[in-house]
């Protein structure tokens, strides 16, 4: 028996996928929107994606060039720090590994700042984007990704809290040292592992 419990409180819904729901999270079947500020609208003609910072030669793709890169399908569970988890989401997009094949990283590159239209940023260790663990999502459940969910393109890092999956992404900057992004400067975790409940900086 736990040292403290709320008398009469109990699980209301059967736990069908309990082992896939991190502590403090609950499963939802819709897809809530959480954004700081208004939703940017980015015309595809002006859209670009860059890899810069600690790379031998930075690259910048147009929408046409970017979407011509090899794409893959991904199925993942996603976990938002506001407590909801959504299981078996289906995406199509470009693996970060595929993007990294296009550049030569400098050996000191260890961290990444993902940056977005609307000036959102978030920091992630480089290793957490590699080996197929993260991708740029372009399609969600068979349709082009809607603007309120980060379209036309968002980063998806499913094994970290979903604020790390930057909406409206426009580039990745490779860095030697970890630096806080937007929410991280506001007191959220530098890493954001849902299985350790690293929600806030003091949980790190």
């Amino acid at each position, binding site marked *: 028996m736990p040292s403290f419990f709320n008398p009469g*409180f109990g699980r209301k819904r059967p736990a069908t996928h309990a082992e896939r729901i991190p502590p403090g999270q*609950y499963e939802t079947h819709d897809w809530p929107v959480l954004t700081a500020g208004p939703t940017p609208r980015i015309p595809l003609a002006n859209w670009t994606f860059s890899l810069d910072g600690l790379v031998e030669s930075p690259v910048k793709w147009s929408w046409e060039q970017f979407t011509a890169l090899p794409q893959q399908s991904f199925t993942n569970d996603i976990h938002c720090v506001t407590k909801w988890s959504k299981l078996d989401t289906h995406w199509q997009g470009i693996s970060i590994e595929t993007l990294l094949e296009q550049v030569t990283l400098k050996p000191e590159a260890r961290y990444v700042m993902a940056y977005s239209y609307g000036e959102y940023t978030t920091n992630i260790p480089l290793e957490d984007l590699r080996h197929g663990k993260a991708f740029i999502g372009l399609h969600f459940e068979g349709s082009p990704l809607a603007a309120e969910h980060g379209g036309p393109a968002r980063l998806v890092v499913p094994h970290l809290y979903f604020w790390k999956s930057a909406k409206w992404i426009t580039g990745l900057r490779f860095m030697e040292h970890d630096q806080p992004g937007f929410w991280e400067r506001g007191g959220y975790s530098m890493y954001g592992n849902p299985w350790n409940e690293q929600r*806030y900086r003091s949980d790190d």
Partner: protein
Amino acid sequence: MARIQWQLGKVTTIIQETPRVKTFRLQLPQWIPHLPGQHYDLRLTAEDGYQAERSYSIASAPEQTGEIDLTIERIDDGEISGYLHEGVRVGDQLEVRGPIGGYFAWHDGMADRPLFLVGGGSGIVPLMAILRHRSILGATNPTRLLYSVRTPEDLIYGTELQNLARQDPSFELVLTFTRQAPPDWSGYHRRIDGSMVEQEIRPFSEQPISFICGPTQLVESVANELAAIGFPPSVIYTERFGPTGS
């Protein structure tokens, strides 16, 4: 940095705000002053160890020391809100940690800037914390609240807001009823839309800071309208919620 610790708050008062909304006043052993707009995480634990957590905005001003007010809407079939509304009595304990959140927060440094607040339903809660604190500070910055509710009985803090509007010449309360308006109502009777936002922004002689909280659709439409009018994203603060299935 020390982890923001869970603590057991004692429920000292429960206020029935509307048929679906209650305020829970919690006395906290380790109370920390908050910024209006911040929230607490609340965790329920079942006897078998099962736990569920949600985040709830603080309704009280930081001047109300030693305790916090959490105003919570009962969601249909809500595991947590259902228990809080049905199963919690004065004297019970609830486990919380906070205050949390640095983005959707009003700082005293903003007290000399005009303020445009837009709330839908229980989205009023963090805005009320701002208004309460601002009132205690004695700030006179032009402030306008555009507040959307379904029916008159869904109006949270109705009397307090109306009193505030009467007593404070720098504060303007604008209500819209989306389903049923009071008898003889001559004000807005529709969902908040672009033309309403434009209309309510017009009286400001200087561009206000804007805090918007409510259902996703409302927040999207107001934030997009403000951006279209030419507000920079840096003065548009948004907090979206629901429906999240609980």
